[in-house]
């Protein structure tokens, strides 16, 4: 870990055996199927995986905002500081949302309400949680908009979302989350819909603000390049579970899980003249009928007999790192 101060090691968030299922007519869809991980104070934790691996649903579960009545958190614990969020009642939970934990969603085009001025939208958590009113609230909003580098925030305050570009909108969304200085920021692929240069600006802005305020961040992405730039630790998800957890520096050098290896191989590298980019064979499993054993075995180049029968236990691989794979077990 790059952070030197002693407090960096205290755990802010501990997720234990989280399961979020969708109950559909065609069966039970196990979107999140026993996810456990921790986030330390000031740490940036990446959540990586293909589409449909349960990343977004994990985030929504932490906020307790899974789409109801279709989905339900069926099991698990989410310890934030010293409270299990899943045991709080709704009004207690609202004290966490927007105050101690904030969220940025994937698409800035749709995450701002089109009919309200952005000043009003950024001020909402400030008024709600910090009980600031009038001039004081406006000052706080301006400060936050300034912090996310929105030019001339005084005029922008009175404008509507459609008057902002995609990159600027995502900054407004970030401002909305950061205005109350939360301890945890959950960013669900916030740069996916931005073009590359805007994406780079946004990443360095968030990284800078995160370092300044020592905010913990859960950063969801499918882009291992972003992980290298943003994260301290990375959790690789597959079919609703975390299959490998590792410090970022290590995962590029020494991936333990064949799926992590495959993901790394499918990242294009400049100067590496391969005839064709590596591609993982097959499709991610249907979450309504996950194969028995390790869900990755049908696509795994080194699958063994035991992989088809039993889910591999957690194997410690040094430090806080672990992997779920029979190869590591042997």
């Amino acid at each position, binding site marked *: 870990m790059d952070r030197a101060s002693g407090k960096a090691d205290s755990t802010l968030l501990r997720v234990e055996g989280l399961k979020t299922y969708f109950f559909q007519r065609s069966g039970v869809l196990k979107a999140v199927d026993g996810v456990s991980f921790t986030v330390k104070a000031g740490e940036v934790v990446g959540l990586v995986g293909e589409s449909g691996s349960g990343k977004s649903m994990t985030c*929504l579960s932490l906020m307790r905002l899974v*789409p109801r009545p279709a989905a339900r958190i069926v099991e698990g614990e989410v310890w934030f500081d010293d409270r299990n969020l899943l045991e709080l009642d709704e009004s207690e939970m*609202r004290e966490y949302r927007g105050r101690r934990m*904030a969220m940025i*969603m994937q698409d800035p085009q749709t995450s701002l309400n089109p009919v309200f001025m952005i000043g009003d939208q950024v001020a909402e958590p400030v008024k709600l949680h910090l009980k600031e009113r009038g001039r004081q609230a406006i000052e706080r909003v301006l400060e936050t908009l300034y912090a996310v580098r929105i030019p001339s925030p005084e005029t922008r305050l009175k404008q509507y979302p459609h008057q902002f570009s995609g990159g600027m909108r995502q900054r407004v969304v970030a401002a909305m989350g950061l205005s109350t200085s939360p301890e945890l920021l959950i960013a669900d692929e916030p740069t996916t819909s931005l073009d590359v240069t805007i994406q780079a600006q946004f990443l360095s802005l968030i990284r800078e603000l995160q370092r300044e305020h020592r905010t913990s961040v859960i950063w969801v992405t499918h882009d291992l390049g972003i992980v290298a730039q943003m994260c301290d630790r990375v959790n690789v998800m597959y079919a609703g579970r975390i299959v490998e957890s590792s410090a970022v520096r290590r995962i590029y050098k020494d991936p333990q899980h064949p799926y992590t290896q495959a993901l790394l191989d499918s990242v294009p590298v400049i100067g590496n003249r391969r005839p064709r980019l590596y591609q993982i064979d097959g499709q991610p499993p249907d979450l309504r009928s996950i194969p028995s054993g390790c869900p990755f075995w049908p696509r795994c180049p080194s699958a063994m007999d035991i992989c088809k029968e039993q889910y591999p236990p957690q194997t410690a691989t040094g430090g806080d790192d672990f992997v779920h794979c029979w190869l590591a077990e042997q």
Partner: protein
Amino acid sequence: MAGYLAGRVFQAILALWFIATLVFALSRAAGDPAELFTANLAAPEAEEMMRERLGLDQPLYRQYVIYMGQLLQGDLGTSARSNVTVAQILRERMPATFSLALSAIAIAIIFSIPLGVLSAIYRDSPIDWIAKVVAFLGQSMPSFWLGLMLILLFAVILGWVSPAGKGGISSYLLPGFTLGWAAMAGIVRLMRSSMLDVLDSDYVTMARAKGLPEIMVMSKHALRNALIPVITYASLIFGAFMNGSVVIESVFAWPGIGRVALNSVLGRDFPVVQGVVIVFGAFFIIINLIVDILYAVIDPRIKYSR
């Protein structure tokens, strides 16, 4: 905003002119009223006199100029059957139609918007079920039948209200409800689906993620967006109500414009038909204008992208 308004008003005037011209052309194409009125008298002189009185002896373009000139002065002409001016007929009949339309749309909105919103929030619950039944009945019951049944129950059996005619506020209840229920059906359905769309949106999730209480999420973030399509629909229905309903007015002996319109069409009383159609058109245009302005107030995206 001022530019947007000016543009809209100009469009409204243009539409009104177009309607007036169309009405002129169509009523001339419908046949010669003088011939119809004097058919039994069989005296060519009488027919000639009739034409002269109605101005039909003039060439068509002259008729058009006279017609437009009178229209600009607010003169809608005189009935071909009686000597009453069209303006007077409208003055007598429009208030009854207008007040009934207003009470019908008010009844429809008061019931259907909360019902639509609640059935979206509590999907598949008893309230959603009730909303479905209300909408289903409203769409499937013919209004003459519903009107008669309501009269039977509330006026004849229970004796709570008078069965027909326009009197105090209570006389509006039955016709207003009969007319309003049919409108309720559409508004409930539209409100429900529009609300469901909005509830699925990211900005509603974001509002919740800010820690806003559910009542704020619904009333502030969701409802305002969900109302946008409903406003259009409800005002179009209101426009239709303004044209009077022949059925409702007959069932409840309501002194409105709907029956006047029907009778004057059947009797080829073309000055009255012209006047009524122009006034109907004007109402529709004014309602559309108001909706456009309401839109610009509710949805900020509209002002700037005209």
